[in-house]
């Protein structure tokens, strides 16, 4: 499914596919993220209306969870695992390398790429690990990091 700009009609269909149950809000937000890449103010407004919640309720949930972004991400999303098992295998250096190599700081990005830390990908016996566009890579050193990133740009 190609990501696209927020669309009220599609948003309504997604909400309906969860029977507009308020307790499915976190799951619906995931579906929105998959479809629209981020959660806009319009999305929050519509969720509040169709789930019979206040905008504050919805905003509270959106802002609580790391997964839900309220600004558009770059075309590629790179996450570097910075939890203990990866730290023990040099993830601090890898994060430094990632920032230099991509030319962006942690928690920031540009139209091409968003870079952020993640606290454990559960790939702790193959540390350090990164996740690129939802795919986990293990035993990543600087060289392998650059090769993974290069293959992305090449495939576009």
């Amino acid at each position: 499914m190609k990501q696209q700009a927020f669309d009220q009609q599609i948003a309504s269909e997604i909400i309906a596919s969860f029977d507009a149950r308020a307790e499915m809000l976190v799951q619906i937000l995931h579906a929105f993220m998959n479809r629209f890449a981020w959660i806009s103010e319009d999305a929050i407004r519509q969720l509040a209306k169709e789930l019979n919640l206040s905008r504050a309720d919805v905003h509270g949930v959106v802002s609580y969870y790391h997964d839900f972004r309220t600004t558009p991400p770059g075309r590629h999303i790179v996450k570097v695992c910075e939890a203990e098992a990866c730290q023990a295998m040099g993830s601090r250096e890898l994060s430094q390398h990632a920032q230099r190599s991509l030319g962006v700081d942690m928690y920031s990005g540009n139209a091409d790429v968003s870079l952020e830390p993640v606290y454990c990908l559960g790939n702790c016996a193959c540390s350090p690990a990164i996740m690129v566009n939802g795919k986990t890579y293990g035993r990543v050193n600087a060289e392998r990091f650059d090769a993974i990133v290069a293959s992305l740009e090449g495939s576009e």
Partner: protein
Amino acid sequence: MARTKIYVPRETAAVSVGADDIAIAIARRAKELGEEIELIRNGSWGASWLEPLIEVLVDDERIAYGNVAASDVDDLFAAGFLAGAKHQQRLGPTAKIPYLVNQDRWTFWRCGLVAPLSMDDFLAHQGFDAFRNAVEMGAPAVIDVVKSSGLRGRGGAGFPAGIKWQTVADAAGEQKYIACNADEGDSGTFSDRILMEGDPLGLIEGMMIAGYAVGASRGYIYLRSEYPLTHSILSRAIELARESGWLGKNIQGTGFDFDIELHLGAGSYVCGEETAMLESLEGKRGIVRYKPPLPAIEGLFGKPTVVNNVVTLASVPNIINLGAEKYASFGVNRSTGTLAFQLAGNIKRGGLVEKGFGITLRELIEDWGGGTASGRPVKAVQVGGPLGAYLPAEQLDTPLDYEAFIEIGAMVGHGGIVVFDDTADMAQQARFAMEFCAIESCGKCTPCRIGSTRGVEVIDRMVAGDAREDNYDLLVELCDTMEDASLCAMGGMTPYPVRSALKYFAEDFSSAVGADE
């Protein structure tokens, strides 16, 4: 001629180091050579250091090849690996790999062995036998067996599972729930993931038995979103169970109704805490609840709920099949049975080792793990995730036993073991513990929300050599406050790694230039 069976794991660690590319390369090369093969995507045996570990079935024996790369595939065919021939990647029969042979595979015995998404394979390997046995025994007898097995919650808290089940069974109410905690957020842990990817139907069976025992008709699995491959495998396994009548109404004519809904977490660590998880399952912010009431009395949507970890639930089928006594024959003292230890971080042979309690850290790290990956001496070992203590090399002989660990100010937790070599800076690790708590705190209680931020600042001042004695006292006092006054383990146990770093690695807090003399 029968097609040669080749196994290439579809499991996160294996895929993260190229298993998908290998599967594609094998299929392509076999086609070019006109070889008849059957490619099976199994789960992982858990020897992550050997991944990608592929196998070929020769004369009813699985022959393993480890650390294979896609670029090795043509060479493997040329060497005759379809007949199990010699090759530099050949490990010999899987059943003779020492790392795997010397384990007590109780819960993970199907992982690696079966095709996780084949109902036929599951049924051929005792699938749902335990459910049938449970129905025959009746609910009270099932709870008794779980009680006498001594099985304790494998998520970290170690609460006796049978007592929790009894509480839910005894609680009043028509609607009860089974909530499976699959929010495996602790760094250094991946056993839930290996189980869900390698034997998802085994988890479903465990949940069915729990549901039958306590009278719950609905189950939820709360899976962390960092596990997309697990999500895909588990979703399909639930569908498979529904399609073949193992989930739904009147399962296999037993009169028992049970279905499972799979929910994704959204990147919040504290949602691994049971009450925060319940909030999140209700679609809300993952804020910790006050206890009491216990979830067993007022849990999901206010109804009596069994909250159990993946491994706890998946341990139950064999307890039913083989008996509580057999399970309790593993382990020591009040820590009966097995735990899936996870060797992680700076370790040569990282992976999953299921063993009875009582094994020492040294046996795991040296005998299984082979020491550090860097070849340097072990400096510290963090057991039980980011809230676990940093133990120095001198304490490696402590047996893994819930109570023995509490005695040394540590915890076994979910069994994650993260090894650091002598280049680690423990002041930096202590600072990270506080920083992580500040990032992940749900914000409900002050000691956790504010204490963690103040903790980072105090450690920074200490390391900078600013009034070190005073700041040391302040940090200890802050740890006391967080430990005594936090609502849940997040704030309450963040002091464990901090205190242990202070206690065993004090020199790391004073190494900075300009330290006060």
